[in-house]
């Protein structure tokens, strides 16, 4: 995703994605696999549904007293010797990290996978400040090599085929590697080991942060999160303020459903719990720990239309099942967070106008709501966003005019009854073999790829008399 891709209209970005055979192949394989794994994981876990309700209730209760829990989290982290920074915008969060790099002479920063850092375009900012960011999650590492952005919340390189990954890692390794995941992972590991040892700073996100204990929780599969948070002398964790949860008991509820929703695993391979910097007598851990609590549009939605989007665990399950995402992948959305939840998060961070096209990038099929571990009603919020677009007159005037006329038609049975004979007359030149295959102007958007049944010779209401 480059700046230019966001200026291209969304339908064009989507059309380009539909024509990319590599993307189509990679997406079909990966999303189908994720869907199957998730289904199996929950099928084997009868408690799952009740835990999802419980997780939702915890998120809701936490939002009700978010200020209290954030205060408690900050106190807990500080009591352990960590530093807490409050950032009301993405810019502020970035400045905190850049300031730490400057003051402490950081040259290399290793990163654990974090969408929050993507949200503030941290890598670009670090590079401009002379700090080399190194992504250490394999998927993130791949797209960093490709100079791209993640196209999925948990599987950033989901759009890449094995052959494409092999080419990228071969370049770094300096010799040709087989398109075999094990070989490629081993080669990446060799490269990354060095970076872990050289890095002055480790930057992570946080899947959860426990208010009561000050624990920062990272859920990963590669163990890189553990290295990022323990090897470099400084650990910086950046989290959205909605990631706080009250207690360790609550954490158990989320851990029971998160990996199942995301990858279909019972648990992820690593669950890393970070409590403060290295304590006296401890052998490992960073000398300094900084936790950045970032708002960036979130708190405004606590009482807003997008409130439920603040429950999001960033598992990516809604992307995998979304018929639109499955066809176009993440980059076509043009923002940090793709997929159905991404549309809501983009609106949250960049305003409603930023999603004037994307708000319609959904058939409202509801598959996202069904798989969401905390049952976020994404379709409802998409409809609400469309309502805002109309109310704020961001929706095109032509669209508003069409719907005004449509409403009038529906309010007048006389006009509605007249619509059928009128349409029959107008469609006459276009009906061939009992179907309409080519219509002009706006209607061609349907007939370019699909036939349309002609308006019936007699509508139901016209036939009703003889049915009586």
């Amino acid at each position, binding site marked *: 995703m480059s700046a230019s891709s966001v200026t291209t209209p969304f*339908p064009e970005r*989507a059309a380009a994605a*539909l024509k990319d055979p590599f993307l189509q192949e990679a997406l079909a394989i990966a999303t189908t696999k994720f869907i199957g794994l998730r289904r199996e994981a929950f099928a084997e876990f009868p408690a799952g549904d009740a835990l999802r309700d419980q997780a939702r209730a915890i998120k809701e209760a936490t939002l009700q007293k978010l200020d209290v829990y954030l205060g408690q989290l900050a106190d807990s982290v500080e009591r352990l010797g960590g530093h807490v920074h409050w950032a009301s915008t993405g810019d502020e969060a970035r400045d905190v990290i850049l300031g730490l790099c400057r003051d402490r002479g950081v040259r290399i920063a290793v990163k654990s996978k974090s969408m929050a850092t993507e949200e503030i375009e941290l890598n670009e900012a670090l590079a401009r400040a002379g700090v080399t960011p190194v992504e250490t999650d394999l998927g993130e590492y791949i797209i960093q090599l490709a100079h791209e952005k993640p196209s999925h919340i948990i599987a950033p390189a989901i759009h890449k085929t094995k052959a494409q990954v092999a080419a990228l890692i071969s370049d770094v390794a300096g010799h040709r590697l087989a398109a075999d995941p094990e070989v490629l992972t081993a080669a990446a590991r060799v490269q990354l080991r060095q970076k872990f040892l050289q890095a002055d700073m480790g930057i992570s996100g946080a899947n959860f942060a426990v208010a009561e204990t000050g624990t920062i929780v990272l859920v990963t599969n590669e163990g890189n999160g553990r290295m990022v948070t323990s090897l470099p002398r400084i650990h910086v964790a950046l989290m959205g303020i909605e990631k706080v949860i009250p207690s360790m008991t609550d954490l158990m509820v989320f851990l029971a459903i998160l990996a199942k929703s995301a990858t279909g695993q019972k648990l992820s391979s690593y669950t890393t719990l970070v409590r403060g910097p290295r304590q006296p007598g401890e052998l490992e851990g960073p000398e300094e720990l900084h936790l950045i609590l970032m708002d960036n549009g979130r708190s405004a939605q606590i009482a807003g239309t997008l409130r439920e989007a603040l429950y999001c665990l960033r598992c990516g399950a809604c992307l995998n099942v979304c*018929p*639109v995402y499955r*066809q*176009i992948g993440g980059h076509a959305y043009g923002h940090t967070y793709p997929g159905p939840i991404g549309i809501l998060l983009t609106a949250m961070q960049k305003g409603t106008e930023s999603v004037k096209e994307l*708000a*319609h*990038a*959904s*058939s*409202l*099929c*509801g*598959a996202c*709501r*069904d798989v969401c571990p905390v049952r976020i009603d994404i379709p409802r919020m998409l*409809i*609400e*966003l*469309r*309502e*805002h*677009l*109309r*109310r704020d007159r961001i*929706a095109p005037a032509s669209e508003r005019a069409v*719907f*005004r006329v*449509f*409403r009038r*038609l*529906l*309010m007048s*049975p006389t006009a*509605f009854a007249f*619509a*059928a004979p009128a*349409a029959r007359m107008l469609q006459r030149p276009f009906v061939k073999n009992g*179907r309409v295959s080519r219509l002009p102007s*706006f209607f061609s*958007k*349907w007939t370019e*790829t*699909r*036939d*349309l*049944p*002609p*308006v*019936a010779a*007699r*509508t*139901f*209401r*016209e*036939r*009703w008399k003889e*049915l009586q």
Partner: protein
Amino acid sequence: MITCLGDLFFPEVGVAMVTLLRRLGVTVEFPQGQTCCGMPLFNSGYHAEAATVARRTVDLFSRSEHVVVPSGSCAWMVKTEYPGLLAHDARQKEAAEALAGRTWELSQFLVEILGVRTLASSFTGTVTYHDSCHLLRGLGESESPRALLRGLPGVALVELPGADECCGFGGSFAVRLPAVSTAILDKKLDNVEKTGADCLVACDAGCLMQMGGGLSRRHSRVRARHLAEVLAGGDA
């Protein structure tokens, strides 16, 4: 209740529903003046406009004992969205809630209210069933249409792989993003053709317009039919 697409494009579905219900001893009325449930307005964010349509519909059907709709999405609209749209007026909200409680998608009405298990239909052939999103996930119904199809003597039901996945219609979505809508449809139709069925059955005019239009464009031998037509019999 016969809503816009059914009235204009698929009147035979309404006729089949009336035939079927009468055969089962139900007295059928068709309140004059009905138009559309208002879902196209609602889904595009025109809520104030949708509310005026909802109010009109609630009034029109105020005297019906049961309201049966051969379309999952229209039934969903009435059942789950009308009360919210009319929430600003206590009396209207109450009327909307009452209507919501009396409104049924056709297959649900047949199975849950009339207790139908088997029907004598002259329809014969191998059919496959597509779960329309609003019926499946909106109203939580997947079993009634299948049970009714299985209960037909001349019909073999084969499961459609990915039956619960969207057909790509999505109302205005189909023309706002036609390329994406069609890509989703193509996947659906590939699955349909793989089943070997000669008839694709669904319970929603929107899906039938989308899938029927796609099948027709690819000159498929598979026909798209509404459940009512299959249950009422007649030739496919």
